[in-house]
């Protein structure tokens, strides 16, 4: 019944993993978007300064006396120096000649039209450079002549700036991820909470509580809870039905048995012939045997059922023993057995009073049944350290040569049991009850040596 269920992952973990996974994905995306955006902005800024520089050089190109002159303005190069300390290269050329600047500066692969510019990222002397190329068509000696101006700058400063930016973007992404993770844990906890509360409410129930669950639950859980309630309902109906069935069955079997037994007793009073009387006695014994066996089988079933869902209440062992002795006194009297009770203190134990009463009753029933006429039975309770003990001591000969284990097997009876009605379940029931309460059943020879001493020891409350 209490086998561990197989788990197919944890809902909370799954929810958390999904939320944290999404957060990680979003954080990465955020990192790249921010980085890309920053890079673009840096590039554009750099490009426009390069362009401004190229334009201002272009402005200083003039044709004087059919000669192209270039007077590179200081500002054109110094404005680049404002951005970073990167090296600046430039070249002013026509289609055929380099007029001034670095001759081996690479040329753009793009075709540039007059009045336009092109941007390239190239490698020059082992460094990555950004270069703008502007073209302007002049009229030289009445012929068109293209002036090409390239301005380039290494990108170390930009790279450092980008590294700085990407660190910031990384921090931003990580921060986002952390906040999102905390929120994910909180969200997972809080969406699981109603489930936990429902579980607690159901497991806190007493073993006999079969009312439907009525606490408000989130709408997603309504189907689960209503299935649970239908299930509880079916269980209640089927339990009631089987209890009614057992009661009805017992009633139907035992009432005719009672009729037969009574009639047999009446007939026994009326007949004189020895053989008839012997048969009638046999009949009565058989009835007693079957009804006792049926009773104990039912008891055993009830005991097993109750043990499965053990009630835990405080029980005063002395009070329980005294009540039981009062109840069985009339039966003991029939055999002139002195049934005494000695309760010392009020040892309290925890458990199911009906079960414990049944266990002690079985022991006491046995004792009365097997005791000779005019003997004595003593029931006593006492507290011994952490143990509460109730014991039944008789003068019925004891269980000679049999140990507790053998005696408490189902349907095993003591050696002197022949000729006495019994089913052999009494000690089994008693032992099962005691052990379900964390105690032990001890069967010994009584102090006087004339009988058995059966003790039920329970841990104290």
């Amino acid at each position: 019944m209490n086998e561990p269920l197989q788990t197919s992952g944890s809902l909370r973990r799954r929810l958390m993993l999904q939320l944290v996974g999404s957060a990680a994905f979003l954080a990465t995306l955020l990192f790249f978007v921010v980085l890309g955006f920053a890079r673009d902005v840096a590039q554009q800024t750099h490009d426009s300064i390069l362009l401004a520089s190229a334009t201002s050089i272009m402005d200083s190109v003039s044709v004087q006396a059919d000669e192209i002159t270039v007077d590179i303005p200081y500002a054109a190069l110094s404005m680049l120096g404002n951005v970073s300390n990167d090296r600046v290269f430039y070249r002013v050329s026509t289609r055929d000649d380099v007029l001034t600047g670095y001759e081996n500066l690479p040329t753009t692969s793009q075709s540039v039209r007059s009045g336009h510019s092109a941007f390239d990222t190239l490698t020059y002397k082992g460094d990555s450079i950004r270069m703008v190329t502007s073209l302007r068509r002049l009229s030289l000696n009445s012929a068109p002549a293209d002036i090409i101006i390239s301005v380039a700058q290494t990108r170390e400063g930009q790279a450092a700036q980008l590294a700085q930016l990407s660190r910031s973007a990384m921090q931003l992404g990580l921060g986002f991820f952390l906040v999102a993770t905390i929120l994910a844990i909180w969200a997972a906890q809080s969406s699981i909470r109603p489930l936990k509360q429902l579980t607690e409410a159901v497991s806190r129930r007493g073993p006999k509580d079969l009312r439907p669950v009525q606490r408000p639950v989130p709408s997603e859980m309504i189907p689960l809870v209503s299935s649970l309630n239908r299930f509880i309902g079916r269980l209640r109906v089927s339990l009631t039905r089987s209890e009614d069935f057992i009661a009805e069955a017992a009633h139907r079997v035992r009432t005719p048995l009672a009729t037969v037994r009574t009639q047999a007793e009446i007939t026994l009073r009326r007949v004189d012939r020895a053989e008839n009387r012997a048969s009638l006695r046999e009949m009565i014994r058989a009835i007693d045997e079957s009804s006792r066996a049926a009773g104990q089988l039912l008891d055993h079933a009830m005991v097993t059922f109750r043990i499965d869902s053990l009630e835990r209440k405080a029980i005063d062992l002395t009070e329980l023993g005294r009540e039981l002795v009062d109840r069985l006194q009339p039966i003991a009297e029939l055999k002139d057995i002195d049934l005494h009770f000695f309760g010392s203190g009020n040892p309290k134990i925890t458990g199911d009073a009906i079960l414990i009463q049944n266990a002690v009753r079985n022991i006491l029933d046995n004792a009365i049944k097997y005791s000779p006429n005019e003997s004595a039975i003593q029931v006593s309770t006492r507290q011994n350290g952490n143990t509460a003990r109730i014991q039944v001591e008789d003068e019925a000969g004891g269980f000679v040569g049999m140990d507790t284990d053998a005696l408490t097997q189902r349907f095993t009876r003591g050696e002197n049991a022949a000729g006495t009605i019994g089913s052999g379940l009494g000690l089994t029931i008693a032992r099962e009850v005691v052990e379900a309460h964390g105690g032990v059943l001890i069967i010994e020879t009584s102090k006087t040596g004339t009988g058995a001493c059966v003790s039920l020891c329970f841990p104290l409350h």
Partner: protein
Amino acid sequence: MRFLLVEDNISLATAVLDRLRMDGHVIDHAANIAAAEDFSATADYDLILLDIMLPDGDGRAFLRAHRNRLVETPVIVLTARSEVSDRVGMLDLGADDYITKPFDFSELEARCRAVLRRHGGDSSNQKRFGDLIFNPLAGTLSVGDKTITLRNKELRLLEIFLSGPDRIYSKPKLVDRLFSYDEDVSENAIEVYVGRLRKHLSGSGVEITTVRGLGYRMSLA
């Protein structure tokens, strides 16, 4: 004693009536709760024997109503149920005791006696025979100013003899009534109890004589 038996099973009821009348008890029978209520309203009973499963309702309802009317008559419940589930509930509802079907009449008698004793008994139940006064509830026997308490088997033996003075009771019949059916006792065991009873009766003018080959008879000397 005067009993009311509330039991819907007619054959069981008939058998119980026969059996209790055999011992000289007066007993009425009600087959359902309605009849039981009529009977208990019109007559005084020493004891009510109540079945639980009845055609017109649960015997427990009768029990509750009975207790609410503050009637003192003790009730012994006849139950067919399991020992574990039901018994405690019966006592909570005000039953004085319960007995599981099928029951031994000696046990039923013993329970009745115990219940009546708890209810304070009744000295009108005292029986006089010759110079002896016998109180079956208290289990006492008085001869002159000397009162003794009888043991259970002595008491039941005396009751049997007193229920039919001058009648002869055979040893086997006395064994049937004094010992339970699962005890294997020889008929001679009776001699021990007759012997003890004779001792208690000495000086009372009542004697138990042995009728050779037939049994025992109690009569006034």
